[in-house]
């Protein structure tokens, strides 16, 4: 991270692009976008040293709405692209934006392995329990009895528990946020960026178009009554028994991030020919 040479501190506005979001009015993702830029301002990151990486879905539109370097790739693969970027360019701050469909369904395998690999990334999933961009189909976090055109009688399937999965797979930092609390979420994102290794934040981000009942989340969320633990088993027990509405940092581990050295070897490529020469 390069510290700014200018005396004037960067404000959240400095990280916003002039490109207008396509989100529906009232979408939780507007707040999450502002939490991103606030977090970058909290840490006074230079915009050009931040890369925002995403896949496909409403939440994945975030990169172009920032003034940072952005990468809007294919559906479900944001974590892979981000890992490649961070491993090749450890000097950058790499933040990944995803949603419950992109991150937990098509990208589920990469989620497991990103937690396990523990590359120094910050993974922010905006969870609204629905595929919004395709106009309202159930996602892995959708309640079993939620009816839609694609699931006329509900899916009948138990919801995916991303935080417990992240813990089991080895994520180093696990938190839950709420889009309706942009300052609190900015704080969480800033902490996640500072935490070494793979940091995962699940953000409850209402989709009032397809899940209007999520307006109620505002009255349901509460700050977690207990501080973050470094005991994964304890964190898992808490998460498996809570109602999904406790907000805050839930787990902070001490695993060393995965980062093989780059730029250390100084051999000339032609030196490698000795291996083949008779």
């Amino acid at each position, binding site marked *: 991270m390069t510290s700014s040479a200018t005396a004037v501190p960067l404000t959240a506005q400095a990280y916003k692009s002039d*490109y207008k979001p396509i989100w529906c009015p009232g979408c939780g993702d507007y707040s999450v976008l502002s939490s991103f830029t606030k977090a970058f301002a909290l840490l006074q990151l*230079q*915009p*050009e*040293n931040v*890369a925002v*990486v995403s896949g*496909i879905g409403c939440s994945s*539109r975030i*990169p*172009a709405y920032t*003034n*940072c*370097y*952005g*990468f*809007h*790739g*294919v559906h*479900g*693969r944001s*974590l*892979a*692209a*981000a*890992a*490649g*970027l*961070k*491993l*090749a*360019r450890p*000097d*950058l701050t790499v933040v990944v934006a995803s949603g419950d469909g992109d991150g937990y369904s098509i990208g589920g*395998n*990469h989620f*497991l*392995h990103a937690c396990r690999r523990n590359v120094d990334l910050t993974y922010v999933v905006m969870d609204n329990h629905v595929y919004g961009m395709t106009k309202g189909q159930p996602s892995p976090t959708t309640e079993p009895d939620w009816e839609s055109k694609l699931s006329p009688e509900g899916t009948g399937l138990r919801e995916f528990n991303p935080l417990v999965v992240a813990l089991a797979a080895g994520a180093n930092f696990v938190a839950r946020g709420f889009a309706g609390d942009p300052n609190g979420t900015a704080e969480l994102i800033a902490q996640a960026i500072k935490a070494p290794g793979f940091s995962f934040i699940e953000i409850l981000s209402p989709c009032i178009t397809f899940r209007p009942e999520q307006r109620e989340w505002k009255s349901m969320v509460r700050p977690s009554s207990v501080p973050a633990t470094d005991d994964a088993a304890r964190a898992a027990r808490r998460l498996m028994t809570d109602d999904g509405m406790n907000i805050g940092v839930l787990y902070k581990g001490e695993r060393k991030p995965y980062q*093989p*050295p*780059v*730029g*250390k*070897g*100084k*051999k*000339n*490529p*032609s*030196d*490698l*020919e000795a*291996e*083949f*020469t*008779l």
Partner: protein
Amino acid sequence: MSKPKEKTKESISIAITGSGGAGVMTAGTLLLEVAAQAGWYGLMVRTSGPQIRGGEAGALMRLAHSPVECLGDRFDILIGVDWQNIHRFADEIPMDASGVMIGDPEQGEPPEIFLKRGARLGAVPFKHLVKSIPGSWANMIALGLAAGMAGLPMESVKAVLQKSLKKGGGEKMAANLAAAEAGYSAAAGMPPVQGLSAPAKSKSATAPDKRWLITGNQAAGYGAIRGGVRFCAAYPITPATEVLEWLAPALPKVGGTLVQAEDELASVNMIIGASYGGVPSVTATAGPGLSLMTEAIGLAVVAEVPIVVIDVMRGGPSTGLPAKSEQSDVNIAVLGLHGDAPRIVVAPNSIGDCVTATQWATMLAEELQSPAIVLSDQYFGQTRAVVDPPDVLGKVGKRVTAQAGAEPYRRYAITASGVSPMAVPGTPGCAYTADGLEHNERGLPSSQADDHIKQLDKRAKKLAQYDYGKSWADIEGDGDFAVVTFGSSTGAAREAVARAQAEGIKTRLVSLRLLAPARPEHMAKALAGAKNVLVVEQNHTGQLYRYLRAEYDMPGKVRSFCHPGPLPMRPDEIHQQITQWSRS
């Protein structure tokens, strides 16, 4: 047509076979080193049953005084350390009455299928000899025997064994040297085979100790590094794994790194991410992996991120023939992306060219900000050969990068060449979003017709307008008869063309290195005046033939000669096609 009997020949072909664990691959590798030590050239193709361990295995070799690029038409010597299931290789080891097969009578009857072809039989008591030399191995007897029959000097066998058994200590070395010597002396008692002609005097020949012993997979890995690659994401797959395994320790030595991915979807997206970050990147895979990667390769097309994907082709479709060669990924490489997606496809045409062509593909990817697919195959990838040092191109790929200027940065600016400066993250004032969505010149998502057409044109133009120079194809000879081929069929086609030329049939060879984008004007020149064009490839449907018919105005009559793997293209069958067609 009966051929005049020759007392000597240009090359000698040897197969050493046995059940898994018999050490035939070791014997083959050592024999190749012996040949190299003696100043010969040669190659060794590995063949095995589907088992991971155990099962039958064969080292198929061809040795000569000049470089060899393909297996011969038939085998002169087949040594069975044992005969278990070796009949399964019958199609891969063609033999006739000129060949000799040698086994241990105590190991049971030799497979009838070879005897039926007229191969003469020799007996060596492998089991008995191993017992009589405590601590020795049967494969070392086979090594000595093969060297003796091929006419290689025993000093070379000794020199190679002393080098390779150094770690094993004195007793092991003594026992196995004795075993090799026993095999070597047994050669005298075998039915005779035609020996190798004396080497032709050539001033241009590389000194034997400057030659390389290399596989195509190692060569492709090295070529990528020479092209500037410093990042690799790897997911293992037969027969491409050795590219990745070679790169794993090599990349850190030159300041790069390799990461193992969870699947091919991840590996290709990782290299796109790394390359977006400014670091030239590669992955290697085979058909099933390439299928998984196609979506992301399309992203690299649209977001204009340079990447190199090495496809070591194997028999397909689906799981197909994982450990056997086939040139059947032409279609997916040149056509296999959705949308109008121009991409670079480069095919090396020899094991040495796996270095040069992969280096070139990396340079093209970087200069053109495009994905480049390198079409190697199992034959190149897993064959070990003694080769002259391949050409190493003088430069690495140079990506045009951006610095902040007075105007706002436009990542996808329309330029004369179609290539627009690509900002490396960290560059102030140039932040942009690389996007799989269609975009405008600034890189902002746009679904407007005007932006779509402009960007489609830009991406097509930058590849079509580029000057690929002479590397697009190797063109040899001239004549009414043209053989057009690519990749590993080139070696056999080159030999067939040489035979046809020697018989007075004026023949030319066009071996395509650049499969995509198509080069219609260049091809028109290369084939000017050709009356018969034979398109040679190793797949079932003539994929290259169909592609050429679609993209090029081919002169004269055009015919496809193709057959699928696992049987290699052999010079004889191509030669027959040429002679029969030119006479009809």
